[in-house]
């Protein structure tokens, strides 16, 4: 356990001054700001909300949908590719794997860091949503989200998309660590996301599609949410172990 903590702390230092670290704030804030501007431009809806809480959740729903549907899979793709790229630019593997540290700790640390960064972004998304809502109360009072936000329900919504994204994280992390090519990792992640727009519409198969799992937690009033979260977590752990096993026994040339 100690070796794993050491590897995680080494990973954290490596991220200093990288775009990958900035992306933790940029990715969710882009979604929050875009959604906010959209509401601000359109003004208050004609039909008033039933309650303040429902208005808050409507805001959170809008932001989280854009996040889960589009930004999250693309952001995971970019983030893992950036972190993988750190180790490919100067063939770091030959140096890392020659250290007296088990290979699995280095892979696992990378995977944990990626998952943690996505979690941090999820928190930023939630905090940004709350902030956007508070500003909205003043600028567009007609939106109706007065008072204290139902923060737990909002956080829950965001965290469920994170849990469901573990499978994408494990998959993209493996691809970006396994192959040198930045274009390959980004290509797969982008195609995966775009193809997901279509696959998601399939009642039968949509819920199995990795890149659409975060969205599946919200689609259809969340009827597939428990499945998407369980599938995301279990699939992510299994794929994480397979990826780690594969990297551990590879020849490092």
């Amino acid at each position, binding site marked *: 356990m*100690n070796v794993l903590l050491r590897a995680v702390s080494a990973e954290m*230092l490596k991220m200093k*001054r990288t775009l990958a670290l900035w992306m933790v704030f940029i990715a969710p804030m882009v979604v929050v700001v875009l959604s906010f501007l959209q509401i601000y431009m359109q003004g208050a809806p004609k039909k008033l909300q039933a309650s303040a809480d429902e208005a808050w959740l409507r805001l959170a729903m809008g932001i989280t949908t854009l996040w889960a549907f589009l930004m999250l899979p693309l952001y995971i793709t970019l983030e893992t590719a950036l972190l993988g790229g750190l180790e490919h630019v100067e063939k770091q593997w030959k140096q890392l794997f*020659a250290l*007296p540290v088990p290979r699995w700790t280095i892979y696992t640390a990378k995977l944990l860091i990626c998952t943690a960064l996505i979690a941090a972004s999820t928190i930023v998304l939630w905090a940004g949503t709350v902030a956007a809502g508070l500003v909205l109360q003043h600028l567009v009072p007609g939106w109706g989200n007065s008072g204290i936000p139902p923060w737990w329900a909002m956080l829950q919504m965001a965290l469920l998309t994170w849990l469901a994204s573990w499978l994408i994280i494990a998959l993209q992390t493996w691809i970006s660590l396994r192959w040198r090519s930045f274009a390959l990792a980004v290509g797969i992640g982008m195609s995966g996301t775009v193809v997901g727009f279509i696959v998601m519409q399939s009642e039968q198969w949509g819920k199995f599609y990795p890149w659409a799992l975060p969205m599946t937690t919200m689609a259809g009033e969340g009827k597939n949410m428990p499945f998407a979260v369980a599938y995301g977590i279990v699939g992510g752990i299994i794929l994480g172990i397979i990826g780690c096993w594969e990297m551990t026994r590879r020849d*490092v040339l």
Partner: protein
Amino acid sequence: MSQNNLDAFDSTSAGNDTAIKTHHLTRHFGKLTAVKDLSIEVARGCIYGFLGPNGSGKTTTIRILLGLIRSDEGQVKIFDKSLASGGKSLLNKVGSLIEAPSLYGHLTGRENLEVTRRLLAVGREHIDRVLAIVRLEKDANRPVRGYSLGMRQRLGLALAMLGEPELLILDEPTNGLDPAGIHEMRDLIRRLPEEHGATVFLSSHLLSEIEHIATHIGIISGGQLLFQGTLDQLQAQRRERVILKVNQPDEALKILTENGWRIEHDDSRLAVLANTPDEASEINSSLVRSGIDVSHLSLERLSLEEIFLNLTGRTENAEVNAK
């Protein structure tokens, strides 16, 4: 491998004075045999120069020693412990620098050391220690992106020494450096055994790179070990060359080849590889007996570089012939 071989391997290495010992290492990449039946032995405290042309299997051997790739056959022992059974903990005593060092350009020199320090779990004071050894204290807080090639190489060496290794494995550490950088690197490496008690295993494709620092030399070509021993032993293998000028070079060439001499020739002279002055007179008399006039005969010593080229060149010829 039979059990007998294993036992023999274990018993011969009972002493505690070998840093590296490999036993019949073989590794194939598809149809290519990168390393073939390679047995080397590196004594503790020496600087071992591992010499061979590009593509001769040096890097493959080094990667096997570091556990980066597996061998198809054979065994590796580092400080008398098998790499297979000792696993990663053995590498505690090993520091490595393979070709160009792998550095994080966006981090400073000090931060690069800190990344490795966290993984190795050694004390913070070691960072200053290794920075002092490679004389990078002044530039330690600059991003590595702006480092010169020589500074990068020195930082690579500092990284390799961070865990106070008893064995340093350096693959072509002077590759791509300018003469001043090469000189500095050589100086650093030469001091390692005396000042830090380390054993150094050093690879190069140029004899001139290591003949001034190595105490022992292993020569590899085509994945096979051709020579292993001290520099003196290599010197003792020196051959001499008999330089001849004759009036009928073609005829002379034919006669000498028939008699089994190895000959290099150009338009004006013949060079025959021989070992002793006796052999020179033997060559001379056989030519004279055949009615060829010898106008010039002199002996020329082969340089170490030529011995090296001869050794490595010969196997290539042998392989071509075998095919």
